[in-house]
């Protein structure tokens, strides 16, 4: 069976192009479907996408989403660089990426069509907002001919609908201005989509009621638009042309679920870490894309023992977090690359002061201001090496939206155990992408313990109690102002190993430098050995991933393993220090492949720390990996003979 979805009345065949390496996987039918919504920044595509996602979640379907939007609030209407898109992959689990190539596209204007076409599967369903195909818009999008007429869409199934006009008609009774009325068209289109996927309108209707509670007219118009789109699909004469899909429900493990974006999960994780450590949390940040959502979520977590402070800049933000940590509250700061760069000097202060601190970096496209709304993993160098002096810190990364929760807890745990700043890497993709999430039971998570304070002994100099480090973790006790008899002074000057007093002494500096290195190395003793995600611990090729590439690598290796079981996949949580058994694990493979959304930064770390020389597969385009690119790359590394003998199907198409 080569189709991926069902239509009650008509079967839509959505399969890969015959040239695609995806063909390999055709033998096992995928029960997922990729939907892409695209329009102008002002078309409300992101809202439409997230509402469709919610309805997907509530229908027991696994999913992954990928919002992709321009850096401007409202980029110029009708241009290709102003296109805002929301891609969604839904189906039976495990869904781990938003999908390589859409099966369904809703294009609100010519520019959206133009930008999306190269991504589509052959035979994809394309729903076009007819009204927007004016000659002005066609020119803006860079079309010289109308693509609806010139054969460009021949290999797709095209449904033309006058969405704008139909929507305006529907909301006319509410007396909105034309521009306000036309803002409802995302809900009109959503209604249509909901019909196609047989979704319950109620949750979205409730959301609209809540959201526009204070603007009754807008509320009612949006509700009307939603229902009108739905009704149109069901009743209009065109309905014959509108396919209906039934997506297989997901076989997710039993439990309570919710949808979650990476930013939400990370915020919840920080709050949970506070609860697990029985400490309050102060989150200090300065807005920046794509890190700001953390601040926005946490600003609503006051009752969870979390405070937020919007500082005047990134330096003030990290410094306030350091001040909070000095004060006995878990200090967290957050930014993306350019803002993290500004925090560099202060990270060194936290290292020297041996204070706990978590620095969250939601990476985006660089260098400099770069591509603020695009995703990238190019701040790993900065995380591992990017400070003056010999100033190592632990670095960890989250792999998926839901995993951000656990990564946040782990970061706080390390920071408190070793009394050190910890860098937690997320990225623009993870921040905004959503997936269904089995709600974790916090009772099953190990509490975070605080290093013991030694008994106060009047005869003992306070400072030496303050710096009496645990021999295993090299973490010192966390003593804050307010504690009687343990007054001490922290600072950025080199300090005496025992007393913490300023010391310019040569031997002491060496000893402290060694201690700081040993402290970060000590983290390794507390983390689980690196395990293999897919495949066995020995074989031909090991693919090592980190961060948000988890999704596409997982899918790619799953596919590849059907024909090549000698390919395995491991994914790193800990980037500094690396797990102790990693070198050994790598040794079990003939080749190691590191796919990264940067120019090979993890490869550098592996060469540096383990002395291995992996194959780098780099992509720096602001877009996540496609499964197909990864499959293709791995195929080039496999011996052709082996491939041929293992996989007659693939052979036919290689």
């Amino acid at each position, binding site marked *: 069976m080569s189709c991926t979805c069902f239509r009650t009345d008509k079967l839509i065949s959505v399969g890969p192009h015959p040239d695609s390496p995806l063909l390999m996987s055709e033998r096992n039918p995928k029960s997922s479907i990729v939907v892409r919504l695209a329009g102008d920044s002002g078309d409300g595509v992101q809202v439409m996408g997230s509402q469709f996602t919610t309805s997907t979640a509530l229908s027991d379907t696994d999913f992954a989403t990928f919002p992709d939007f321009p850096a401007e609030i409202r980029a110029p209407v009708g241009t290709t660089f102003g296109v805002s898109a929301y891609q969604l992959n839904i189906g039976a689990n495990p869904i781990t990426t938003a999908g390589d190539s859409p099966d369904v596209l809703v294009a609100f204007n010519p520019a959206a069509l133009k930008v999306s076409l190269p991504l589509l599967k052959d035979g994809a369903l394309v729903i076009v907002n007819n009204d927007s195909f004016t000659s002005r818009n066609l020119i803006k999008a860079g079309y010289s001919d109308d693509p609806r007429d010139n054969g460009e869409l021949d290999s797709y199934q095209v449904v033309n609908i006058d969405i704008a006009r139909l929507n305006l008609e529907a909301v006319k009774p509410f007396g909105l201005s034309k521009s306000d009325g036309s803002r409802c068209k995302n809900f009109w289109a959503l209604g249509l989509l909901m019909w196609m996927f047989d979704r319950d309108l109620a949750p979205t209707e409730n959301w609209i009621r809540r959201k526009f509670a204070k603007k009754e007219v807008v509320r009612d118009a949006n509700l009307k638009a939603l229902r009108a789109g739905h009704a149109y699909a069901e009743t209009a004469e065109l309905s014959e042309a509108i396919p209906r899909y039934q997506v297989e429900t997901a076989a997710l493990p039993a439990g309570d679920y919710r949808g979650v974006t990476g930013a939400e999960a990370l915020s*919840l994780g920080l709050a949970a870490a506070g609860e697990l450590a029985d400490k309050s949390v102060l989150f200090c940040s300065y807005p920046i894309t794509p890190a700001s959502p953390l601040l926005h979520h946490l600003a609503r977590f006051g009752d969870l023992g979390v405070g937020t402070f919007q500082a005047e800049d990134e330096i003030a933000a990290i410094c306030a977090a350091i001040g909070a940590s000095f004060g006995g509250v878990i200090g967290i700061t957050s930014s993306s690359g350019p803002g993290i760069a500004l925090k560099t000097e202060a990270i*060194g202060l936290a290292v020297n002061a041996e204070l706990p601190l978590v620095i969250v970096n939601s990476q985006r496209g660089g260098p400099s201001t770069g591509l603020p709304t695009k995703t990238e993993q190019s701040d790993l160098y900065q995380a591992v090496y990017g400070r003056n002096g010999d100033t190592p810190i632990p670095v960890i990364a989250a792999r998926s939206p839901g995993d951000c929760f656990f990564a946040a807890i782990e970061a706080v745990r390390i920071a408190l155990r070793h009394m050190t700043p910890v860098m937690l890497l997320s990225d623009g993709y993870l921040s905004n992408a959503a997936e269904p999430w089995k709600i974790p039971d916090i009772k099953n998570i190990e509490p975070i313990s605080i290093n013991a304070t030694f008994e106060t002994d009047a005869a003992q100099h306070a400072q030496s109690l303050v710096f009496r480090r645990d021999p295993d973790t090299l973490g010192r006790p966390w003593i804050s102002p307010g504690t009687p008899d343990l*007054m001490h002074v922290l600072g950025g000057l080199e300090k005496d190993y025992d007393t913490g007093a300023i010391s310019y002494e040569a031997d002491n500096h060496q000893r402290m430098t060694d201690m700081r290195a040993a402290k970060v190395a000590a983290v390794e003793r507390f983390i689980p050995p690196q395990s293999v995600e897919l495949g066995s611990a020995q074989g031909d090729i090991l693919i090592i991933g980190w961060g948000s590439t988890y999704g596409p690598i997982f899918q790619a290796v799953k596919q590849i393993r059907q024909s090549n079981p000698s390919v395995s996949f491991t994914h790193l949580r800990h980037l500094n220090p690396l797990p102790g058994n990693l070198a050994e694990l790598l040794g079990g493979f003939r080749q190691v492949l590191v796919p990264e959304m940067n120019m090979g930064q993890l490869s550098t770390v592996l060469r540096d720390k383990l002395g291995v020389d992996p194959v780098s597969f780099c992509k720096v385009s602001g877009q996540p990996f496609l499964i197909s690119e990864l499959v293709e790359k791995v195929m080039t590394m496999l011996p052709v003979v082996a491939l041929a003998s293992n996989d007659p199907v693939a052979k036919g198409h290689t």
Partner: protein
Amino acid sequence: MAAALSAKDFTTAQEVRWCPGCGDYAILKTLTGVLAEVGAKKETTAFVSGIGCSSRFPFYVDTYGFHTIHGRAPAVATGLKLANPELDVWVVTGDGDGLSIGGNHLLHALRRNVGLKILLFNNEIYGLTKGQYSPTSRPGTRSPSSPAGSFEKPLSPGTFALGAGATFFARAIDTDKAGLGEVLKAVHAFDGTAFTEIFQNCIVYNEDVFADFADRKNAADMQLRLQHGEPMLFGANKDKGIRFNADTFALEVIDAEAEPDQVLNHDETNKVVAGLLVELTAPVALGVVYRRPDESFEKSWYAARKNGLQRTRSVADALRGTNTWKVS
């Protein structure tokens, strides 16, 4: 109850590392005295500083301390104060640390009115880095980085602070134990940002730059000691006074005996006069120039919360979000 602490109790055993004769010694001495006098507690007092000679201060006071990085002390102190609003948080900074690299943080601490006691040791020079001119140096200051004399316009800490929305501004001279002591007591008692400029003599790189008014022999004629509600008088016999000239919008020195009713009374809540006072050069205004209490940042911050920084709901609850579904 524990016995009252003395100035000596606030002094650490640390060897003080300032140049002999540096004005910082006098400030340290007066401050430890004031801490004892106002009954400060060691464990609930914290000194936060940046980098500079002045910023070494925390090492010499036997309380909690944090010698942070250059210019960032107000930001660190803000985090500390939010984490524990019960603390007395003092910030010690210099004209370089506070007004050059740290200008932005000082600006925003003042704007927000964070409950910090900020002492700016103004020696009009970068002491620790060997004497380059600073943003408060007078035009013409010869220094290693301005060998032919600097020509940048200096910033007036008081004018800057008022522009930033300060609710408290005071001034004192390092070696003036009485005047400085009084100001420090006012600082200690103030909620919100208590910002004080202390004229501090750097005997190595900018010796006697304040001598024209700070020297005891010039004190009577060159120092205007402000007291809220009292007339602005100075001179050996308090025979000179300050008047506001409503035509020129300026302060003027007048013969106080000749025109006693023309002498302005000091109203520390008057921002207009405060703006003029901080720019007076002969005499120089000392004491609490401006004080107009307003709710501190941390007060507002905590007022907007139900139970301080305490948890009142379990994360387990929050984890469920708004749209939850069951898979079975």
